[in-house]
């Protein structure tokens, strides 16, 4: 276990291993994304109350669910950076912050699109999830701007790790405190596999496929950007120079 753990910390080992994983992950992502998007956005029967607008939710729910994974991910990566001084964890954390900000933004954008039809407004302060997602975006932007402000990469790694841990705890507190407001947001409907119910199983299956697709997309983009980061930070090492000469 510990050998595996310390091996994972080596950028070179990760670069080689992730190179083997990537084709499989990308294939799986393309398959799930195509099925989810084509079926979910073009062929899914309209919801009995929401009409065709419910199709936006297929994307929105998947992206929103995934964007909640970023702070826990950065919390774990930050702990690894601070405790074991693992460079790789920081490379992941750096890109996770940027990806997380994009995912939060897309969640807000798709949510507003859906809200503009269903609620009749693009933005609604009384909805707790909207507001806490906005502040998650702000916190992630704070982590990104702290990293860009600190020049020394070792200091930046540790400082951002600490801020991510504090931020992760804070996101939870923000989420629950914002819920004290009256909420307008859809309570997520319970999973209903009964074909005779108005929310038939198709909707759930499409959403599940989309969630898997978005998680795969997240892994692929995180791995790709981390590989990029590895090449950039290890550019002086022998194996990277060999790799560049070979290609």
């Amino acid at each position, binding site marked *: 276990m510990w050998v595996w753990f310390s091996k994972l910390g080596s950028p070179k080992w990760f670069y080689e291993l992730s190179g083997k994983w990537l084709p499989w992950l990308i294939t799986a992502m393309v398959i799930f994304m195509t099925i989810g998007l084509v079926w979910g956005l073009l062929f899914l029967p309209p919801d009995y109350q929401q009409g065709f607008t419910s199709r936006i939710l297929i994307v929105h729910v998947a992206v929103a669910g995934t964007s909640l994974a970023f702070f826990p991910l950065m919390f774990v990566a930050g702990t690894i950076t601070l405790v074991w001084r693992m460079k790789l964890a920081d490379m992941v954390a750096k890109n996770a912050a940027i990806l997380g900000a994009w995912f939060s933004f897309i969640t807000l954008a798709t949510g507003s699109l859906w809200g503009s039809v269903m609620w009749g407004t693009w933005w609604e302060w009384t909805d707790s999830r909207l507001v806490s997602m906005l502040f998650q975006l702000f916190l992630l932007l704070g982590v990104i*701007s702290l990293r860009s402000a600190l020049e020394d990469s070792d200091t930046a790694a540790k400082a951002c790790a600490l801020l991510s841990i504090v931020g992760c705890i804070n996101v939870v507190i*923000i989420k629950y405190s914002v819920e004290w407001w009256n909420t307008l947001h859809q309570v997520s409907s319970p999973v209903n596999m009964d074909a005779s119910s108005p929310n038939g199983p198709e909707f759930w299956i499409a959403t599940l496929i989309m969630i898997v697709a978005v998680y795969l997309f997240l892994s692929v983009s995180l791995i790709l950007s981390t590989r990029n980061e590895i090449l950039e930070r290890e550019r002086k090492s022998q194996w990277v120079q060999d790799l560049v000469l070979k290609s």
Partner: protein
Amino acid sequence: MTEKQTTTSAAFLATLKRDLLIAFKKKNDIVNPFMFFIIVVSLFPIGISPESDRLTEIAAGVIWISVLLASMLSMDSLYRSDFEDGSLEQLLLSPHPLFFLVLAKNISHWLVSGLPVVLVSPLLAYMLALPSEAYGTLVLSLLLGTPIMSLIGSIAVALTVGLGSRGLILAVITLPMSVPILIFGTLAVQSTLNSQSPLGYLSLMLVMLSVSVSLAPLASGAALKISVN
């Protein structure tokens, strides 16, 4: 020569005393955020409306947001001069637990920057036409909320102490984190205005205060170690 061992409580008190002394010698660092607070609050009636009905509605929020902004401005002086003259390194090298030394610095900073703001708040609440039955709740909520702000801000200041221009990045980091305090602080005042008991919100703030007193100095200490090395 054998050195006399100092106890941690003596070190705690010495740090507290030293910081208070420095604060009273450099009055600008205390007075400017305080003036900023009063000026910002007085701008709202001019910008929004001088009618007392509308002012009553926004009074709690205006005071709370101005407190957040002022405390953020004053945070900058918490570690800066110590960092510049090297005494921060001495603090880190001290054999006593960093937790208590950081806590002492935070307490003295709150005494000179947070407490004056809390004390002057009823006056500003009167100017914003807040009904007098809410003064008590406002002061209590500020009394619980401003130390939390100082403790959270201390982490962000410790992380950015080595940077040249850090005013704005400090705001970007700390302001989103102060959302829960803002919510509970204003809700407490609002519930008093609706003649409900604000005790629930105030006790939640007390919980947040005790959690941040016990955890934030740890994070600030770790952040100082990161920044100074």
